[in-house]
């Protein structure tokens, strides 16, 4: 795989993705500091932004594209723990804890990412109390998401988990206004890596959901035909 190409870096002050990020309320002097020091890189589909076990050297902020964050199990099976979209920040946990990355971040499509050096990030963090609060808040949200996945994995049957995975994707990336397809293309294997099941079972359950007219396939995309029925499939007891 070739190295990602370097292209001209957009400034943080005029970044369109900033309003969705933890840097949204940051004052211009701090933004300038971050903007001047960052590198800007493009990643093709399947390329890693950072890998599990490697040392953190900076903070990543997604400018455009989509990223999956995943861990490798002992049996070699991947588990997707979360997704990221433009404005989302990655790699802050390893920086905060001082440990190596405990997961891998991989581009799901062509993705542009800004990387702020560790030293500049800590310098800005020291002088910006609201940023440290936003990072704690983001950590708390990540924790709630991971706990929800634990409950899903421990208490739900495979059909419910796959429906949950589709809802998680549609909540994160949204549905297309024109045709209600989920705004992300994932392979069946990747969907099985969210739900913690085999690819074969995922194919079977997706086919069942299609037969029941809850979803449909449009090329590589999944269209949600009946959102309420999908919710019901994910949480049949409610």
């Amino acid at each position, binding site marked *: 795989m070739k190295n990602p190409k370097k292209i001209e870096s957009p400034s943080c002050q005029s970044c369109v993705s900033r309003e969705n990020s933890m840097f949204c309320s940051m004052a211009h002097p701090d933004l300038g500091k971050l903007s001047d020091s960052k590198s800007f890189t493009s990643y093709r589909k399947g390329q890693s932004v950072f890998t599990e076990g490697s040392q953190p050297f900076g903070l990543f902020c997604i400018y455009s594209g989509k990223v999956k964050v995943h*861990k*490798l*199990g*002992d*049996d070699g*099976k991947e*588990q997707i*723990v979360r997704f990221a979209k433009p404005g989302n920040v990655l790699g802050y*946990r390893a*920086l*905060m*804890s*001082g*440990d190596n990355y*405990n*997961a891998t971040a991989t581009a799901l499509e062509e993705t542009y990412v800004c990387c702020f050096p560790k030293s500049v990030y*800590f310098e800005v963090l*020291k002088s910006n*109390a609201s940023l*440290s*609060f936003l*990072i*704690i*808040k983001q*950590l*708390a*949200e*990540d*924790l*709630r998401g*991971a*706990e929800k*996945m*634990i*409950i899903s*994995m*421990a*208490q739900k049957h495979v059909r419910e988990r796959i429906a949950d995975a589709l809802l998680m994707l549609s909540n994160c990336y949204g549905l297309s206004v024109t045709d209600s397809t989920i705004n992300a293309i994932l392979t069946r294997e990747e969907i099985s890596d969210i739900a*913690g099941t085999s690819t074969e079972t995922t194919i079977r359950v997706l086919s069942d959901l299609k037969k029941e007219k809850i979803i449909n396939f449009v090329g590589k995309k999944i269209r949600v035909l009946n959102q309420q029925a999908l919710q019901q499939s994910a949480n049949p*007891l409610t």
Partner: protein
Amino acid sequence: MKTNSFLEPLSETEEIFNLQQCFAEQGRALVSVRTNQKLIKKSDGFDGVLHITSGKVKIVQDAGKARETIIWIAHSGDLIGLEELLTGQLFTFDAIAMTPDVNGTFISKSRMNSITEGTPFLSMTIAKMICSRLDSVETRLTSIAGKRIEKHFAELLIELISAEFETIKNGLQPGYTIKDMAGLMGTSKAYLYKVIAHLVKRDIVKVVNKKLEIRNSDLLKRIADGELIE
């Protein structure tokens, strides 16, 4: 607990001590509780955090049919309700005392804000606490998703006895009930008993008076490492 570059002047001990001291000074003491008492109920509007100073508290999600999933176990120094406070959501689990010696201080949202604003390094300490919990939740998630239940159980037992155990005549006894261990694994007690029965046959564990005893921790480690799967 590790420190980041700008926290280096503070030693690990000072950091923890200050956290405990700040919370204890500004919090409100809890009355003592009994085992299995619900400290916080699901959907409680819990406008603050509970700082545990002694004992163990399980944070559980009830799955009905007498089955529960333990999300995590809070020990001395842990903060319950922190993520709800930060995300502004209701408490979605039950917090239940596991031991009779649970004690702690309740810290209201406004007090919590004044503590963190008045002592900025505490924000970092709190961030690190959440990072550590997040690491453990994600590792568990990967473990539940990809492992055979026997391997997962062996791994849990090794983890539990490395943290807390009682030495008995013929082995070790983890400080958790079989029901709690089923909750930690996200399985039913009945199913866990089936797994235990298989381990009992190989004389790796034994159940005496409803308590699990580990007779052969070496074999258990080999199962956890995936070397000994039948």
